């Protein structure tokens, strides 16, 4: 029993049972002993507040609850309640001992020791202020639930660990919920009338027509894909405790929808007063033409300088190719189950300091489709495909808001799916879907966690957000997450006449951080991330990043050499100077972000038709040669990063790029994060190709650019 310390005299001689605590406010007059003033939330520790009727307030009474705690002090704020007012809450450690995690009937007893009056309080997802679909949101709490009729149920425990985060408090003694954080959703227009989202929408003053423009039925009927933004917004910030739907990761954040079809370089998004974090569940998959945009790079720079993280989907091209190259070579990547597409293509995909998110399914391993690469930062949950009508083996996808229109009015994502057709649940589910997936779904998971981080630490910088996520994510060595481990993949590549590493698996970098091209630094852990944010100043690396880094570039002349006419090229990139003050040579610095300029990576024509085609920017030639291109890099500390693997297709042509612009083409690796670079340190960039690289051309402009912190 959990009791308040004071006793209340018993006026009732017999035990009386009432169906539920009255929801009336006021003084608890009449015969009703307990009146609810304010509802709480059993999943966050937010207390229920109720008043005991005056005649029951004498010291002889004892007030107790069977499962939760009753107290006269607010458990969140510490505020002492006025006479007759009490707080009831469910401690976090009690949640995991409940017979059924998502709800129970609390028994509140008023007793004098001999006789008692019991009030029943219905708590949980099906209560009046519950979230009925929270039970289906395994990414928030994975108990192995399977209301989706998929063939493989989610694996218990594989979730964001966000409930623990919700129990934490910010510096204002408010529960962590995303409150006060403004999230921009760069996507199809969000359905601003959706029952789960309308209370969350925020429109900055002076907003243009592409802001919160809403989702019309006409648009949805034209293509159900237009629901995408609504799905994303729901994952981030769907309202909680409103008797509807599920809830978002940052269920009290404010959401602003920016229509991605209106050009999407919206400079108002660089204003921290109206935007604290951007979610971009989108990609631009081509390296040239409209894919390259220096304007975007300055837009990204402005957001970075203003402390606005940009969370971006890594892509879904692990087992497909978008460049229409499939006719030019066999997709060996599929036979070997390795990455099929190198996604560092457009300016959007290569945004400097963007937090690229790969995807995990409900079984706790990489989603089958998730793009991977050295530019990935962390992984979020997205599931696979949910219920499959073709009857193939399936596992869960993500449950989130879909639209405010009836599913019969458009091409419903869940048409004829059991989760939709089950009559008993139709009304609760009709505005929602169980099929949201892709790195589109994984990204808002991380955005939601980032919103929680920002509430915990409002002055957090982008480097700090990246640091916090990297340091607190679950990797293959984290207890319970061992299934994240996978073996490196090697295969004999006949064109090279030897075994080539196609995937290099988890490894420790030289500063001790664990990294993988599949998962970046690992799967986001909301509670650990928020705790780290709250204690950022106690962590030297976090505190260091309260300032923005300097930029260092390598200046070694003619860094590249090839012993075999350009088939194997090694560039020794060293002699770092401060890019803003070239006379300043750092003694040593810590890596925060690293990019390599490969803008002049081009092929030399020779007797091989493929090589000549590639050198002349023929689509077929570029496809065939790039398919077998490998780019890797070794840091001064000895960490080997696989940047571009063999069989990962890439549409980049240095020949064409040189015609388009004199700007750099920067590709990145996250692998060396927090490693030290001594003044004499050098990076080895290694390029292997079946056609000779123009080493002279490469020598003209290749360099490594590092955002870093100089050692004092």
């Amino acid at each position, binding site marked *: 029993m959990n009791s308040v310390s004071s006793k209340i005299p018993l006026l009732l001689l017999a035990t009386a049972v009432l169906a539920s605590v009255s929801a009336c406010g006021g003084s608890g007059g009449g015969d009703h002993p307990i009146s609810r003033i304010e509802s709480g939330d059993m999943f966050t520790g937010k207390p229920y507040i109720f008043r005991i009727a005056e005649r029951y307030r004498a010291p002889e009474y004892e007030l107790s609850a069977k499962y939760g705690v009753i107290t006269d002090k607010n458990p969140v704020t510490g505020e002492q309640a006025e006479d007759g007012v009490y707080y009831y809450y469910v401690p976090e450690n009690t949640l995991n001992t409940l017979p059924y995690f998502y709800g129970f009937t609390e028994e509140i007893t008023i007793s004098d020791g001999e006789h008692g009056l019991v009030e029943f309080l219905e708590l949980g997802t099906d209560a009046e202020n519950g979230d009925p679909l929270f039970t289906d949101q395994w990414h928030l709490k994975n108990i192995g639930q399977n209301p989706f009729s998929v063939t493989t149920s989610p694996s218990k425990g594989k979730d964001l660990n966000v409930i623990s985060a919700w129990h934490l408090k910010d510096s204002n003694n408010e529960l962590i919920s995303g409150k006060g954080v403004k999230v921009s959703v760069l996507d199809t227009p969000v359905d601003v009338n959706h029952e789960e989202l309308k209370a969350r929408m925020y429109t900055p003053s002076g907003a243009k027509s592409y802001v919160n423009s809403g989702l019309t039925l006409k648009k949805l009927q034209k293509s159900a894909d237009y629901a995408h933004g609504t799905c994303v917004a729901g994952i981030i910030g769907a309202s909680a405790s409103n008797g509807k739907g599920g809830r978002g990761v940052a269920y009290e954040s404010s959401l602003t929808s920016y229509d991605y079809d209106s050009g999407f370089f919206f*400079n108002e998004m660089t204003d921290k007063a109206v935007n604290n974090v951007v979610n971009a569940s989108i990609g631009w998959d081509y390296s040239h033409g409209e894919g390259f*945009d220096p304007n975007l790079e300055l837009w990204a720079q402005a957001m970075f300088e203003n402390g606005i993280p940009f969370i971006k989907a890594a892509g879904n091209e692990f087992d497909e190719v978008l460049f229409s190259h499939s006719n030019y070579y066999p997709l060996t990547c599929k036979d070997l189950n390795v990455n099929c597409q190198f996604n560092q293509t457009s300016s959007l995909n290569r945004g400097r300091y963007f937090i690229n998110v790969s995807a995990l399914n409900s079984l706790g391993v990489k989603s089958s489709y998730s793009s991977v690469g050295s530019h990935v930062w962390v992984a979020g949950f997205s599931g696979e495909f949910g219920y499959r009508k073709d009857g193939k083996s399936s596992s869960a996808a993500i449950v989130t808001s879909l639209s405010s229109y009836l599913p019969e009015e458009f091409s419903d994502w869940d048409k004829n799916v059991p989760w939709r057709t089950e009559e008993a649940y139709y009304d609760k589910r009709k505005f929602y879907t169980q099929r949201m997936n892709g790195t589109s779904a994984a990204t808002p998971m991380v955005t939601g966690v980032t919103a929680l981080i920002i509430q915990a630490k409002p002055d957090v910088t982008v480097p700090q957000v990246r640091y916090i996520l990297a340091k607190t994510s679950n990797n293959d060595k984290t207890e319970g997450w061992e299934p994240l481990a996978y073996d490196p993949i090697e295969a004999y590549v006949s064109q090279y006449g030897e075994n080539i590493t196609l995937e290099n698996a988890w490894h420790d970098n030289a500063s001790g951080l664990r990294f993988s091209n599949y998962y970046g630094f690992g799967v986001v852990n909301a509670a650990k991330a928020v705790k780290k944010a709250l204690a950022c100043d106690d962590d030297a690396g976090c505190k260091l990043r309260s300032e923005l880094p300097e930029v260092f570039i390598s200046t070694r002349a003619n860094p590249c050499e090839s012993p075999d006419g350009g088939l194997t090229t090694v560039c020794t990139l060293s002699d770092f100077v401060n890019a803003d003050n070239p006379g300043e040579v750092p003694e040593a610095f810590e890596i925060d972000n690293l990019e390599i300029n490969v803008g002049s990576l081009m092929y030399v024509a020779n007797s091989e038709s493929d090589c000549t085609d590639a050198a002349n920017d023929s689509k077929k030639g570029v496809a065939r040669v790039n398919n077998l291109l490998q780019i890797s890099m070794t840091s001064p500390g000895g960490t080997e990063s696989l940047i571009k693997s063999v069989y990962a297709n890439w549409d980049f042509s240095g020949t064409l790029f040189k015609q388009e612009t004199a700007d750099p083409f920067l590709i990145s690796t996250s692998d060396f994060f927090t490693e030290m670079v001594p003044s004499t340190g050098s990076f080895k960039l290694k390029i292997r190709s079946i056609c000779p690289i123009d080493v002279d051309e490469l020598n003209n402009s290749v360099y490594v650019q590092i955002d870093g912190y100089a050692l004092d």
Partner: protein
Amino acid sequence: MKIKTVLMSALSLFSVTACASDAQMMIRESNGTTVYTDNFKVLDAAEKINKTEGILGTLGDRIVISGTRAPDHIAFVRHDDERNNFIIRNILMIQCAKDTECIPDDIAARKLSRSVYEITVDNYEEWKSVQERLRNAVGVKNVSPSLYYGVKPSLKNTKAGE
């Protein structure tokens, strides 16, 4: 100084067609590019259905016709091969070197962050002249035009088993 190479030729005039009041303001470049500086309008996919006359060119999955341009569109650049046509917007983004105020006093600019500024121009001529001037300004690290290709990014969800 970094300015997208494809636009370098747009900064110089090779010929200008004299215009009647209702004709295009058009500049024909020698590299297979035509720049329309007025009387052009973008139609989206829905609006372009059944439109067959007065088409100036394509813009991603949209078309451009004669008409009143959007206030933030100052030029339509069309390539002879119809590939990668784009709209020039009325915004220039400027990056100054670190700890430098690089925008001349007589150019109105909005500061977006510690090193990035936004300049709004009224027309194509101003767009060119401001870029030329900033190219030579002390402390300017980067001048970037805002271009619109009429193409949407792809959404990153995926479907199977339907």
